């Protein structure tokens, strides 16, 4: 029989493969391919690639990276893919990936006593030095606990000892890591590329010096950099009414800063990752090659945490983008390219990029997509260009708010006439379906604001029918509950309760259905209010919420982002039990409006945004005052650039994309020689 690649010679020793024990289980689980690894562009490095120091110290830096969701969602995650490659390029370091196992596999692992494993070397998570977890959504917290527990790593950081991995979280949810403070050793906020290398350096130095101070010593070194938050080194005091009194460095942790800074990578062209994107064998949610064309956004949408915490805007150059796509397609064989960012049509040279790519890949059956949702006619031109000759099925726009008033509140500057003329342009260019994204439960919102979505959708259909001369055009309204997030101007606002959200959506549904002339042409998709309350609790929670997470997890909470696994009742039960002795409850964390002077659980994590500016922006929101984009108007002092010593990095560069000849060269090699 051919040798099975997972097997390694030293069973039982650290870093040895568990594959031979896993293999019989793979016969019994759904979609076993997600656990076998071996994806194109994946890598398994020597466990001792870092060698040993002069006194016999082992010096390899070993990261296990996890995105705590199912493989099909987790594998395409760009963050993990980038860090995986950045770390593995370093000769003395290795990174392997781990994903959440489905309940069928979890049960078998427990029965057989097998650890949570990496899919690359099938090594036990507990064997690694560092366990890096990318938390882009709070609904992955219970999956993090499952992974720790399956790996035999103590759930609480205070119970971990020398030899246990350092558990580090990153990603957007890490901007308020307090709800998981008990379970993690450290959090890193902001861009990860440079940060993982700095942590790796620190680990190497600590190892080469004979691991002074053990685990505690290493954590102290990390915390003293000012860029790694170690919750155990900070004490939280509460007021009698339940609000936070103070968060301060613990007396035992000398030299630890009061506030921990986010990391910001400048010059994206110097970080062209992923160079070799992973290509899964199993089906995944994004079957394409993604290129981040810029990072950050200063549109200033007040609900948008991503836009607030990733400032300033840093563009990748048109030529940098062209090179990444060229090498990425050659390395993967993907037939679709997605140009990613928070608002892709805003790249200073997007028209040149779209035309250049469309020219380059014409006739190669390569799809190009721009998942931008900006509402203007320029966006239609771009979509047309990227879609040359293809079938024009659907376009998506995100007005976010139903009425012009509420759009001023959220600072999404789109008038109704803009929207109608944009969809008119889409229908006249042959697009047949328009999707519109909205939110429900925005600050100051009334039923009337939401009901205007129905009028808008009807106007869209009316316009489409008039312009296309056809009746079979469609508009889909997709709407979800708004969840206030940390580090945004809405971090103080009260979230709309689940019953109120559901009632408002019900009224909207009736308003759409009531008019027979349009009802069949308008699709309506909405999310129930209940999951939003749990997400809201986890988003703006403090350390006391950790007990809720643990109780829900012990009661079986897993995969909370999946509606078929999510249970609102379980979470409410857990909250009632865990917060019974506290002066706070779920409503206190979610639907309560906060005051200006309240200490927020994440105030000591520095996103660069000035809290006074955020408060002013919150007041402006309440007064329907809009704010411009600092890329084309003067700085409005959000605070990020001076605080983080960064600057906006945008074009234009004036360069263009030249035609490619590589594809032809590859083919010539295959032709029959006569």
């Amino acid at each position, binding site marked *: *029989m*051919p*040798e*099975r*690649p*997972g097997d390694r010679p030293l069973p039982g020793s650290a870093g040895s493969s568990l*594959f031979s024990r896993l*293999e*019989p289980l*793979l*016969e*019994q689980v759904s979609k*076993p*391919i997600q*656990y*076998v*690894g*071996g*994806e*194109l562009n994946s890598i398994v490095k020597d466990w001792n690639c870092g060698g040993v120091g002069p006194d016999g110290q082992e010096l390899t830096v070993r990261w296990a990276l996890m995105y705590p969701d199912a493989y099909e969602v987790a594998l395409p995650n760009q963050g993990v893919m980038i860090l995986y490659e950045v770390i593995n390029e370093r000769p003395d370091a290795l990174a392997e990936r781990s994903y959440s196992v489905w309940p069928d596999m979890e049960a078998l692992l427990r029965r057989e006593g097998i650890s949570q494993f990496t899919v690359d070397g099938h090594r036990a998570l507990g064997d690694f030095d560092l366990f890096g977890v990318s938390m882009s959504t709070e609904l992955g917290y219970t999956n993090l606990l499952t992974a720790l527990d399956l790996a035999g790593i103590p759930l609480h950081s205070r119970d971990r000892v020398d030899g246990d991995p350092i558990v580090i979280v990153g990603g957007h949810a890490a901007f308020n890591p307090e709800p998981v403070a008990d379970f993690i050793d450290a959090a890193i906020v902001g861009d990860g590329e440079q940060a993982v290398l700095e942590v790796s350096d620190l680990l190497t130095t600590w190892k080469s010096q004979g691991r002074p101070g053990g685990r505690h010593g290493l954590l102290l070194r990390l915390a003293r950099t000012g860029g790694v938050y170690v919750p155990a080194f900070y004490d939280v005091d509460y007021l009698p009414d339940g609000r936070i009194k103070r968060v301060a460095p613990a007396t035992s942790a000398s030299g630890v800063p009061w506030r921990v800074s986010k990391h910001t990578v400048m010059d994206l062209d110097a970080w062209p990752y992923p160079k070799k994107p992973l*290509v899964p*064998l*199993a*089906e995944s949610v994004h*079957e394409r090659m993604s290129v981040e064309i810029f990072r950050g956004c200063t549109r200033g949408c007040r609900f948008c945490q991503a836009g607030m915490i990733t400032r300033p805007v840093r563009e990748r150059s048109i030529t940098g983008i062209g090179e990444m796509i060229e090498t990425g*397609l*050659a*390395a*993967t*064989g*993907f*037939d679709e390219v997605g140009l990613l960012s928070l608002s892709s049509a805003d790249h200073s040279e997007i028209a040149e990029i779209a035309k250049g790519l469309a020219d380059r890949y014409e*006739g190669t*059956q390569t799809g190009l997509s721009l998942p931008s949702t900006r509402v203007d006619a320029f966006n239609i031109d771009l979509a047309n260009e990227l879609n*040359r*000759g*293809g*079938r*024009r099925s659907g376009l998506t726009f995100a007005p976010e708010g139903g009425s012009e008033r509420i759009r001023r509140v959220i600072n999404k500057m789109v008038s109704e006439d803009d929207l109608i003329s944009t969809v008119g342009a889409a229908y006249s260019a*042959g697009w047949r379906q328009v999707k519109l994204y909205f939110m429900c439960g925005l600050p100051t919102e009334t039923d009337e604001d939401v009901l205007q979505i129905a009028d808008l959708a009807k106007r869209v259909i009316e316009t489409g029918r008039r312009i*296309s*001369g*056809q009746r079979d055009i469609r508009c889909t309204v997709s709407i979800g509950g708004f969840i206030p997030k940390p580090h945004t101007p809405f971090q103080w606002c009260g979230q709309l309760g689940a019953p109120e959200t559901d009632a408002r959506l019900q009224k909207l549904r009736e308003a759409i259905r009531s008019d027979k002339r349009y009802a069949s042409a308008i699709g309506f998709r909405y999310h129930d209010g209940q999951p939003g309350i749990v997400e809201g609790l986890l988003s703006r929670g403090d350390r006391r919420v950790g007990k809720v997470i643990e109780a829900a997890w012990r009661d079986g909470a897993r995969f909370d982002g999946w509606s078929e696994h999510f249970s609102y009742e379980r979470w409410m039960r857990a909250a009632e039990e865990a917060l019974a002795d506290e002066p706070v409850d779920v409503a206190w964390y979610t639907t309560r409006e906060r005051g200006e002077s309240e200490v927020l659980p994440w105030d000591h994590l520095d996103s660069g945004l000035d809290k006074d500016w955020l408060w002013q922006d919150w007041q402006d929101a309440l007064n329907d005052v809009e704010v411009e984009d600092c890329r084309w108007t003067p700085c409005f002092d959000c605070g990020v650039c001076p605080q983080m010593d960064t600057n906006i990095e945008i074009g234009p560069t004036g360069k263009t994309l030249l035609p490619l000849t590589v*594809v*032809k060269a*590859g*083919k010539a*090699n*295959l*032709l*029959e*020689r006569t």
Partner: protein
Amino acid sequence: MARTPEGPPPAPSVQKLRVRYAKRGRLRFSSTRDFQRALERALRRSAVPMAFSAGFHPHPKISYANAAPTGTASEAEYFEISVNERIDPQRVRTALNEALPEGLDVLEVVEAPPGSPALADRLQASDWVMEFRGMPVGSLTDAVAWLLAQERVEVTRVMKKGPRTFDVRSAVVSLVASPAPDGTCAILRAVVRHTTPTVRPDDVLTALYSVAALTPPTPPLVTRLAQGPLHTANAMVADPLAADQDVNGTIGGDAQGSASSEV
């Protein structure tokens, strides 16, 4: 307003190639769809000048034949591709092997002569080997004897449209139990005719369980050694590409009947 694709229609197909590949090691857990996606990407990476179908969603012209079930390994899987420029089969074999993940290995590429009968028609039977780790050969030998003594052995399998009951015995051409040379496991060789519904190795196992309560300690490692025309006289599965090789005058890969040497 209905639109038609702009530009000229796709270039016509000028050559059809038949490919035999293996699914090995941990990649035996890949499904048919997993393989299809991997192949399409490998064809793009290796710049094979694929012929495409017309229309708004052009697809590369590939036809897949009778893939082994998820979880089973195989030394004899087949597909055909059509290309719009003549290419050298051996170069394609090398290029595809570089582009596919290790464990999906292209073994043989031959040109299909114009007008040659469909490959699927030649795939009449499969030769399977099942490796039962940690099981004495005796119980397997007994179970095989019991099964062969029956005229019909019906099994029920849940398919997409619900449970379906069908006979396994009539599809089984030969069934031989033997000990592994090193004595660590029992080995079952099965030549099974391709019927509708297909009798899969796990159906044979279900049948063995139903006639003789055979319950292996762990699921066996299953590998398809060959599929092709069935020579009933000696229960041999022949090489389905042999006819094409004769026409091409090329020497193909290993003869199918002796594929067991790779096991």
